[in-house]
């Protein structure tokens, strides 16, 4: 009998955070079965996330691979896992009261969120395309359900269905791409693909390029790049707002983790990719920004804004190399903070009865909730990239990485896009500060949980903007640990 445990290098130390999240999701599902204890689910979820975060930070600096080289534990994956967990924690705080008001506060919500986070963590740590695909599916299936969870709202149903169909199509593309790569190389392991790249490229170029293109399309759908973005606004608008907040950050970060791992590490020698990403990045940021200008709904505007932010991060993929990856990670952390903050305020406002997040509902907000309006303004400044917020630093690193590699036009287009985006972000500030409300505006009621979420994101947005050095060092240390 062969000793399979050592032959396959089964090492549970590599996946302790994943196991923690999985076990927590089981516990939450059990809690959800009983009406008496289901209100504990949010607390248990938080404890699970904090434990997982703790285990994740303990892994920092550790490098290794296991499970027949399916899992790679490296700083790159660890940073992303931490991003997913922190984003999830903020979303738990942020959604608590909203879910209660809308009657959605069920244990299943948290269980689905936990499993979705698990899928993202699997994606970030995978060194095999099959594991990457499974992680993507484990991430997506709960998201489809979460989008459609608010069953009495037709918009939510529509969001769930739309997201499901687009997601299913995109996964089909991804899977076909992986199949082509497997056909050309006989393996799905990224390390083997990198080792034997020149052989594959010489022997089966058509399959290789077709596979790469299809994988790119698959992930393009997930992160919402133009021209695969059409689902984004409807889904973001229709889904319950805390779920939208989650959508706009965590799966996007997971998609970029996968994109960076596959294209900057795995297929770094496919030189045409840089040009493809150039076009995608320019299209994504420009189209996202231009369409955001025309929106009258804040959630929809934030949806288009998240598309344009994906465009900025794509710049890092155009550039490639360690500096660009570090800049992308920095930007994703920053984006997590200010985007969740922005959605946090929107969530809070939506707990007022009858509020659908139209722009004109923001009128007179500074009279009723001055501090909240100031926080909202902070997040809008960060989204548009004003100093001293972290939004400015993030954009600065991304575009300076592009400049150093000689992508002048890309930088010019990016900066011009930032200027365009200022218009619609400032429109939020203008409406909430200077426009008079019709009738008496209803004040938004703050709850302790949402205050925690807003404080975390606001401190993150401002603090990381003033002292970016630590985060920058962290993201520079987050390199691929695969020789």
């Amino acid at each position: 009998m062969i000793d399979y445990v050592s032959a396959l290098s089964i090492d549970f130390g590599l996946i302790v955070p994943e196991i923690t999240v999985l076990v927590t999701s089981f516990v939450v599902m059990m809690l959800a079965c009983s009406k008496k204890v289901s209100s504990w689910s949010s607390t248990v979820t938080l404890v699970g996330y904090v434990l997982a975060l703790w285990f994740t930070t303990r892994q920092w600096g550790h490098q290794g691979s296991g499970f027949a080289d399916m899992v790679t534990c490296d700083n790159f994956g660890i940073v992303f896992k931490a991003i997913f967990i922190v984003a999830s924690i903020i979303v738990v705080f942020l959604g608590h009261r909203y879910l209660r008001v809308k009657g959605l506060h069920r244990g299943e919500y948290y269980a689905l969120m936990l499993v979705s986070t698990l899928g993202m963590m699997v994606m970030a740590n995978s060194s095999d395309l099959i594991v990457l695909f499974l992680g993507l599916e484990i991430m997506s299936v709960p998201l489809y359900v979460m989008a459609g969870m608010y069953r009495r709202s037709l918009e939510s149903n529509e969001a769930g269905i739309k997201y499901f169909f687009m997601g299913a199509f995109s996964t089909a593309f991804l899977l076909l791409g992986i199949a082509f790569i497997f056909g050309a190389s006989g393996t799905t392991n990224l390390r083997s693909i990198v080792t034997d790249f020149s052989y594959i490229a010489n022997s089966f170029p058509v399959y290789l390029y077709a596979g790469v293109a299809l994988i790119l399309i698959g992930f393009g759908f997930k992160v919402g790049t133009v021209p695969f973005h059409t689902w984004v606004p409807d889904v973001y608008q229709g889904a319950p707002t805390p779920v939208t907040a989650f959508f706009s950050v965590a799966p996007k970060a997971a998609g970029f983790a996968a994109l960076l791992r596959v294209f900057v590490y795995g297929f770094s020698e496919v030189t045409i990719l840089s040009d493809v990403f150039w076009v995608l990045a320019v299209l994504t940021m420009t189209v996202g920004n231009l369409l955001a200008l025309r929106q009258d709904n804040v959630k929809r505007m934030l949806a288009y804004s998240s598309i344009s932010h994906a465009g900025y991060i794509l710049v890092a993929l155009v550039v490639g190399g360690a500096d660009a990856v570090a800049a992308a990670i920095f930007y994703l952390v920053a984006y997590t903070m200010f985007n969740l903050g922005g959605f946090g305020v929107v969530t809070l406002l939506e707990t007022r009865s009858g509020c659908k997040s139209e722009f004109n509902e923001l009128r007179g907000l500074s009279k009723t909730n001055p501090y909240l309006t100031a926080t909202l303004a902070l997040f809008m400044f960060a989204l548009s990239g004003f100093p001293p917020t972290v939004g400015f630093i993030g954009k600065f690193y991304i575009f300076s990485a592009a400049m150093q590699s000689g992508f002048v036009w890309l930088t010019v287009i990016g900066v011009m896009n930032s200027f365009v985006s200022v218009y619609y972000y400032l429109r939020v500030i203008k409406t909430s500060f200077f426009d008079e409300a019709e009738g008496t505006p209803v004040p938004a009621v703050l709850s302790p949980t949402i205050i925690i979420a807003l404080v975390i994101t606001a401190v993150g947005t401002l603090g990381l903007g003033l002292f970016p050095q630590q985060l920058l060092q962290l993201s520079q240390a987050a390199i691929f640990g695969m020789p």
Partner: protein
Amino acid sequence: MSEYLAVLLFAVAGIGIVLITFGISRLLRPHNPYPEKNVTYECAEETVGPSWIQFNNRFYIFALIFVIFDVEAIFLFPWAVAFGQLGLFALVEVTLFLMILFFGLFYAWKKGVLKWV
């Protein structure tokens, strides 16, 4: 070639059994057709309304749980084939796999999905 012969024999046997049973009953049964025999049988009542109705969505959950456990069965099939070779390692692995899936069944049960009324 011999492999196809086996498949052919199976096919012939399969079709043959059906033909033979139908043929025998054809020979034995009385032949007396009349129009009422072709009417849809509904407990001796006149049929009411179309047979196309909207199913209860419980069927859907049942069918989905069935699919899940069908897929599980197809995963067990190769395990059974190679069990002797893989031994304890695969046993632990499959047990874990089954436990994860049975947790899903347990959840559905607890939620009262399996109850009909």
